[in-house]
């Protein structure tokens, strides 16, 4: 899969990239702020977008909201959040296919993404 990783913390980004590339053998593009996240997401070249909730310039929730408002279809979005129960994240949950809570196990990251995507497909079909 072609994955867009939007994460401002370079350490977490390194770990996630290593896990996705070495364990899942996926192709990963990394961006570190909200504006780059939005512009890359709009290109439509990705299979899934991992979006961190708190980023510089624009939060993940705002990126999600702006993308949906533009009405352009993008890849499914999965939130990465240290605090998935906040009201703000809950507000944007319907625009995503799921979330992965931090801290996550990098060895399970790929299977978590696959589970979320297959659940989303099943829900859509149902």
């Amino acid at each position, binding site marked *: 899969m072609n994955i867009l990783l939007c994460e401002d913390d370079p350490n977490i980004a390194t*770990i996630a990239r290593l896990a996705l590339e070495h364990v899942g053998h996926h192709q990963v593009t990394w961006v570190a702020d909200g504006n780059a996240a939005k512009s890359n997401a709009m290109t439509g070249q990705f299979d899934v977008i991992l979006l961190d909730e*708190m980023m510089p310039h624009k939060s993940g929730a705002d990126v999600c909201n702006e993308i949906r408002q533009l009405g352009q279809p993008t890849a499914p979005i999965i939130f990465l959040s*240290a605090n998935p*129960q906040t009201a703000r994240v809950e507000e944007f949950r319907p625009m995503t296919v799921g979330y992965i809570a*931090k*801290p996550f196990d990098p060895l399970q990251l790929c299977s978590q993404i696959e589970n979320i995507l297959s659940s989303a497909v099943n829900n859509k079909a149902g």
Partner: protein
Amino acid sequence: MKSIRARLLVISAICLSIVVASGFLTFASFEQFSQLNSDLAQSYDLVDAMIAYKYKSLSGNTSQKTDKWIQNWRVRAKKLQPEFRADAVKAVLKNPSTKNLRFLSRSENEYRSYLHPLIDYFSRRAKFFGSLTVASTLFFSFGLLFYVLLYLFAPLRDLSKRMEEFVHNRYSYEFAVPEPNEIGELQSAFDRMAQQVLGQIEELKSLDKAKSDFLSIASHELRTPLTSIKGSLALLNSGIMGKITESAQNLMTIALDETDRLIRLINELLDLAKIEARQFPLHPAWISSHDLISNTFQRLSGFCQTAQVRLEHADTDGYELYVDSDRIQQVLTNLLSNAVKYSPKGQAVTVKIVCDAEPGELTVEVHDKGRGIAPEDQALIFEKFRQASSPQNPLVKGTGLGLAIAKTLVEQHGGTIGVRSRPGDGSTFYFTVPKWRRTANAQLRAVV
């Protein structure tokens, strides 16, 4: 004079004065009427007495008693008014002739004809003033009652209504200009109290927001570095970055375990803080008991494998529970992980659903065959940072918060949580779910 008390005093004084005055006049008129009636009766008695005296004299019946009687009447005659009456009586007492008696009789008739109109007058006057007293008493009573209802009870009722609205409308309040009287003073006092309460509510709201912001920041700042630490250790330990020595791998495993333990502690501390700050809103929905239990078993499969304890379930299918699935899964996970921690190797932990143990109630039970809990510990274990120690079992490295969190979450759902246990005989932890239904009939059984 805007004071209600002053107005009431003045009105009451006026009313009372009028009632007392008319009452006094009634009494005075009645007194006069009685006196005149008495004089009238006395006049008749006088004539009868003189006639009786005449017949006694004619019969020659004189005695000492008679002399005394005559003396008495002479004294009484002096008091008679007008004077002609006294003269008439004296004349009869001196000489009880028919002529004198006739004169006496005429005098008394004249006197009585003078009395009759007076008696009439005072009778009418007494009735008039009596009626006036009754009417004024009734009028002023109703007037006072009307005044009290209009100027006292009506404003009090309005004020009471505004106070009720203040409480029931989540403390929204419209301030009004108070009247310059006692009710206005009461309203001003309530307005001041309402302002204070509203101010304190605003302060509490901003404190709540500050708490919420702190929890959000703390959550992010604690979990972010842990993500890097756990991630790095996991990747190194897996060998993806290259082979490492066995002793290095052991050290990695220790570091990973402790990282996981730290993560659990932070998660539970933050969860408990959020629950206590009422920032854990529930999102209940209908979920199947089968899905709840199988998802929880899946999450704990690795942990159970390490502990060499089996997870089993009985009578758990066929129900739907109206709960927040994430939160109830957290409750069940906490109970099951505790049960696994305290179970001997090779044993099983069983989840069972019991309904109608009490009418309408559904209970989820977790049975283990551990060493049991002493009665004195059974109430304490649901408190924060309390746990039974188990030096034999290395898995018992809990935070002491799991049951406290489970209790809070169950109670948020309106249920109860508890334990039945005897030392040496295992334990059964249970929690109830108020709203549930059977999937076969889909009958809603909600217990409030």
